[in-house]
């Protein structure tokens, strides 16, 4: 309801002073039209308050979020380029995309579908970056080489803790490149003294092995000794080759070694 304007008592006629004003009075109509709608005014104030409230929450939340990221052991560095030299991804290269037919299987990762085109694409990309791609057969030969036991050939798993613990190439070192401070002290000396370093991740379009190899190259591992296993652990396990679960040299070997 519009609040009725009050008239100064001295301006009222004695006979009408007691009569309440109604919206029907022409004078009131004119005055009411001249006044801003109080409801609209309240609404506008209310929205302003909400906007102010959300801005305050956004500011406080942002500060708290950055603090939480800072204290979290898994927090990200804000300034580090995690994808050096990475070009804008194209739609068709997305590894996770699957039609439901393929996804109905028992928890098969979509990236498990390794196509030859993906492998070729990866090899070409590696060459551009001064790295070398390597296939499953050669990787297996390196694994069976006696030099592997002497750590002259080293396997490096570029995946995260969870996936590494689930299953890795027996004897492979873990190097999750997102947390170099955690892994480099153990991996770097071995890689520097090795003749060949095989870096792998999930395979397919997984790029962690590529970036891990680049990171190792940056810290002094000669690029001619670095090999990226294009098929990755997906191909390795698909071929029924042994997998070690838990930590490195845990002795928990799955699969067989023909």
């Amino acid at each position, binding site marked *: 309801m519009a609040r009725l304007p009050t008239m100064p008592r001295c301006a009222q006629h004695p006979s009408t002073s007691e009569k309440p004003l109604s919206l029907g009075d022409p004078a009131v109509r004119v005055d009411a039209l001249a006044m801003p709608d109080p*409801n609209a005014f*309240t*609404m506008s104030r*209310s929205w302003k*308050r*909400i*906007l*102010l*409230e*959300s*801005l*305050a*929450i*956004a500011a*406080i*939340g*942002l500060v*708290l*979020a*950055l603090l*939480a*990221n800072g204290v*979290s052991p*898994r*927090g*990200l*560095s*804000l*300034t*580090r*380029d*995690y*994808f050096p030299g*990475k070009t*804008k*991804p194209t*739609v*068709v290269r*997305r590894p*996770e*995309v*699957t*039609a*439901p037919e393929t*996804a109905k299987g028992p928890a098969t990762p*979509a990236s498990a579908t390794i196509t030859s085109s993906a492998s070729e694409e990866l090899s070409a990309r590696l060459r551009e970056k001064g790295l070398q791609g390597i296939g499953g057969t050669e990787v297996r030969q390196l694994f069976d080489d006696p030099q592997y036991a002497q750590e002259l050939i080293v396997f490096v798993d570029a995946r*995260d803790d969870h996936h590494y613990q689930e299953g890795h190439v027996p004897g492979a070192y873990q190097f*999750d490149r*997102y947390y170099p401070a955690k892994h480099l002290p153990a991996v770097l000396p071995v890689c520097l003294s090795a003749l060949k370093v095989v870096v792998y991740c999930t395979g397919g379009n997984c790029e962690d092995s590529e970036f891990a190899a680049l990171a190792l190259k940056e810290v002094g591992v000669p690029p001619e000794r670095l090999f990226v296993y294009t098929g990755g652990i997906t191909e390795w396990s698909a071929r029924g080759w042994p997998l070690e679960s838990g930590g490195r040299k845990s002795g928990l070997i799955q699969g067989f070694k023909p």
Partner: protein
Amino acid sequence: MNDAIPPSSRPVFRELSLLVARCLLGGVMVVLGLSKALHPVDFLKILQQYGMTENHVVLNGIAAALPWFEIFCGLLLLGGIAVRGTALLSIAMLVPFSAIVLHRALALHESMAIPFCAIRFNCGCGAGEVIICHKLLENGFLILISGLLLTTTPRRWCLRPEMFQRE
């Protein structure tokens, strides 16, 4: 206006529905935010795949802050603190996110000749690989809930429904 109605005269059913809406939206935000905050690298990789920005500091900033920010907003909603402001922020997060996911899904639909509702990928919502149709519906529902909370001030079972309360 709803704001003028004293709390006691509000139907309990209405207040209950607001409580459920708050808990649902807040709960979803906390759970999905936590799953991203615990695996920020995975979230960063997904954001990178969207190709939203070439600036790595901006990308890292989004990947580092957004999950914790989501948790913060979720906790505010669960506690009934600054509900309308938080609901507005929730809409501000959900609408662009849904638009990006829709854009990506449409691009896949065209390039891979997959039926739209058969497209599934890890959209970065924190729930892993999902059917995009379902995800968009879910987001639409969450936007509706946020809209409800934005337009109605809950009065009961809230610690501080408005940050800047009128005296």
